[in-house]
């Protein structure tokens, strides 16, 4: 064999760490035993099979993903990345149960383990390159869910991406004049509309088609007749991530960039998708066009990547919860539509309702399914079979997309939670009238409900009957308070132990049970007390504050605590994801810095104070 043997193969591997540390003749030998395979998108490479010889894999082109058995993303691999090397490290045996899935068509080079082993036997010092590589790779692979370059985009500022081309007009200008300004003068798809030096509206070329041409609206009328009022805006210093979240949340494609009430640019979806990686952020669009559960399942890593980017971008927890809820909603709706396409139109009116944190728009990476179906009262026994199929398909489909099934079976697929409206109204009546333990649990799940699909009127009717029942039973709120304050936050953290009020010490802090849930419960009680329909925890405190039930100081304190604890938990979940662990709510105090320790202690104290206040105000004495 001469030197020109497969120069492209040898040249490729010679630039990859750790192969770059091997002499040319060794590389040539290794190149001789390489096997090349092609895997198409969605296909997986089995790393655990005992039958075949094991290999070290090099991604030559395309992109792969490593996932643990439970679906948690372990790493994303691109050209020049390696996998299947864990065998080199005797301490690590958790390659078992890993799956490598192609997320693009991939060309992979396979080097048999046996070839590497015999190389190391001959020349042990080469093994060291690979051993350290294994360690480094294990650590670094974990945070390449998105590469830093891609992540960089998210934390860039709006001013870096937005264009300066935007038309600025006044609200009394004619539609035609505005269109002229947009097309002929500024050559832009969007105009920002001022009235008395204030931004009052926005018009896009899509709006022009929709609201003017399609409606045959006279073009000599003023633009304010057809503009979008009070448009969303961003500031040039906002993160691209924030802007993209807004676009997803409100389904808008244009955001004027405004500084001191002056329009300085325009950010459009096309600015973001010009770099194709940013399309990941339009996950919701992709969900809408998925036609099978299988296609939806493939989108899970993108969802996780968005969650991780949001947390790392230090986006406020409220927005993270909202964005993740919107994505959850999109999955749910899409699955319902896919099944309706298969089963035909539903035989009667219904509402698909979500409950718990999903209803509150507080979805995080651990959120499981809480759902229910409310059927029209004229539903027949036969119709119910239809909804049973629908509910099974949707809940199982969500499970496959990594929204775990609810362990308490609070799901539409449970007969009890797939009932006609009058049955649901009786449920609420019974729960409020007799809030014993079991019923209290049920009601705490279904106290928050939100329609994701179908007739939203059912949800309104249910909520109305809930409020009227609560008003009728004065004791109910007291019982709710008693239950909510049965659990107290820890007193503090001493010597790596979480000190609880009962004197018992625990090694880990269950942040959900001992902090977040307590705040959520308090918010619910305040909302019910002031008859607010708000679902989101922060909005509930706000309603209580506006109604004068919660003092300004107390409001500020509890909101601060809530945000701090949520951020703290998101950080904890992110760290777990990056280590390839299943995220949980148990936090080891050893990992706290003094900053966290101090702030946590303050937060606990504020929660305890609020619990006492609630007991005094609403408690049954």
């Amino acid at each position, binding site marked *: 064999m*001469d030197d020109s*043997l*497969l120069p492209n193969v040898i040249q490729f591997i010679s630039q990859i760490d750790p192969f770059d540390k091997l002499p040319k003749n060794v590389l040539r030998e290794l190149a001789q035993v390489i096997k*090349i395979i092609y895997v198409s998108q969605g296909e997986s490479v089995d790393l655990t099979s005992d039958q075949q010889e094991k290999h070290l894999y090099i991604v030559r082109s395309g992109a792969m993903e490593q996932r643990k058995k439970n679906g948690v993303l372990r790493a994303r691999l691109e050209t020049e990345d390696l996998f299947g090397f864990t065998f080199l490290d005797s301490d690590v045996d958790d390659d078992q149960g890993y799956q490598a899935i192609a997320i693009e*068509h991939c060309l992979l080079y396979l080097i048999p383990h046996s070839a590497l082993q015999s190389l190391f036997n001959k020349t042990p010092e080469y093994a060291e390159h690979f051993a350290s590589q294994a360690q480094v790779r294990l650590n670094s692979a974990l945070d390449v869910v998105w590469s830093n370059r891609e992540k960089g985009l998210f934390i860039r500022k709006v001013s870096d991406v937005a264009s300066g081309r935007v038309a600025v007009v006044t609200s009394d200008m004619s539609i035609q004049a505005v269109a002229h300004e947009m097309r002929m003068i500024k050559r832009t798809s969007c105009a920002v509309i001022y009235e008395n030096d204030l931004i009052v509206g926005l018009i896009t070329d899509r709006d022009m088609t929709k609201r003017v041409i399609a409606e045959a609206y006279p073009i000599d009328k003023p633009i304010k007749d057809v503009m979008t009022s009070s448009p969303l805006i961003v500031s040039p210093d906002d993160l691209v991530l924030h802007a993209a979240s807004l676009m997803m949340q409100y389904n808008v494609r244009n955001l004027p960039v405004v500084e001191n009430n002056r329009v300085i640019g325009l950010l459009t979806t096309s600015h973001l998708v010009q770099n194709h990686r940013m399309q990941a952020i339009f996950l919701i669009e992709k969900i809408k066009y998925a036609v099978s559960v299988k296609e939806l399942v493939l989108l899970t890593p993108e969802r996780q990547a968005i969650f991780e980017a949001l947390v790392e971008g230090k986006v406020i927890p409220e927005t993270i919860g909202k964005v993740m809820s919107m994505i959850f909603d999109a999955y749910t709706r899409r699955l319902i539509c896919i099944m309706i396409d298969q089963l035909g139109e539903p035989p009667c009116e219904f509402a698909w309702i979500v409950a718990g944190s999903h209803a509150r728009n507080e979805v995080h990476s651990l959120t499981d399914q809480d759902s229910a179906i409310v059927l029209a009262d004229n539903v027949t026994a036969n119709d119910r079979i239809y909804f049973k199929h629908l509910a099974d398909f949707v809940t199982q489909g969500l499970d496959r997309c990594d929204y775990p099934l609810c362990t308490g079976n609070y799901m539409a697929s449970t007969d009890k939670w797939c009932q006609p409206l009058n049955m649901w109204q009786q449920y609420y009546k019974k729960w409020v009238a007799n809030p014993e333990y079991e019923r209290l649990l049920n009601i705490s799940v279904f106290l928050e409900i939100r329609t994701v699909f179908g007739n939203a009127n059912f949800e309104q009717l249910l909520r109305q009957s809930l409020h009227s029942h609560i008003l009728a039973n004065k004791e109910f709120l007291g019982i709710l308070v008693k239950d909510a304050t049965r659990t107290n936050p820890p007193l503090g953290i001493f010597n790596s132990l979480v000190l609880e009020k009962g004197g018992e010490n625990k090694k880990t802090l269950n942040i959900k049970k001992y902090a977040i849930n307590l705040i959520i419960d308090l918010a619910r009680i305040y909302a019910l007390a002031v008859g607010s329909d708000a679902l989101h925890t922060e909005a509930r405190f706000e309603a209580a504050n506006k109604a004068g039930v919660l003092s300004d100081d107390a409001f500020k304190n509890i909101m601060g605590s809530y945000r701090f604890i949520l951020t703290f938990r998101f950080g904890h979940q992110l760290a777990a994801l990056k280590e390839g662990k299943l995220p949980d709510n148990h936090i080891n105090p050893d990992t706290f810095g003094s900053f966290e320790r101090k702030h946590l202690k303050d937060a606990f104290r504020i929660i305890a104070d609020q619990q006492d206040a609630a007991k005094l105000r609403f408690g049954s004495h």
Partner: protein
Amino acid sequence: MAILDYFHPLSTLKRQRETFNKQHQIPHTIAGCLGQALPALDSLCAELTYVVLDIETTGFNPTQDEILSLGWVTITQNQIDLATSQHVYIKHCDKVKPESAVINHITPKMLANGVTVDEAMHYFFSHLADKVLVAHGSVIEAGFFNHYARKHWQLPTLPLLWIDTLCLEKHFSTAIDHYNDVDLTLGGTRKRYGLPEYNSHNALVDALAAAELLLAQQKRLSRGSKDSFGRLYRLSQRK
């Protein structure tokens, strides 16, 4: 045999080959290759072994131009095995009789320094038993082989079993778009499949490039199910 199977191009080739073997004295060099049984229509693509070949020549006309080098690599069970890769340079100054090529055993040193075209032919065909020949635009390779057979052995067109990745691609692309011209060159086709761009070119690199393309095309063809060789061969016929 069903009547449709009788007219399948693979069945036609099988009959051609039987007649050819009966009517002619088959030289030792190609005896192993032409003596092999052709794959059954329903054999699975993944179960066959392929030799993917590329030749470098001084031009496209077999009667005037010369082969400069041959490169090939084997695909077994959907895996390209680089251990099987071969790269043979041909030197054209020496005149060696075909008989001597059969006797001479080719050594790595000879390959590096170049061998005679007879030695190269013998060496290549000795690798072909029970394998399917593949090339991108196999009409060139087949043309040079047929010319060689006519000149040295006075044989007509050799009934070789070819899979042509270019013809496969033509089938795929015309299935999508009848009107636009699609870039069917090896580089252009690979680009559409997201296969990496290779900067250096020689017979072996191009053979490897075509082998990778065949893997990608088979994946596209099968879309998850196991495909029969009969289907692959039919799609590989020139239109």
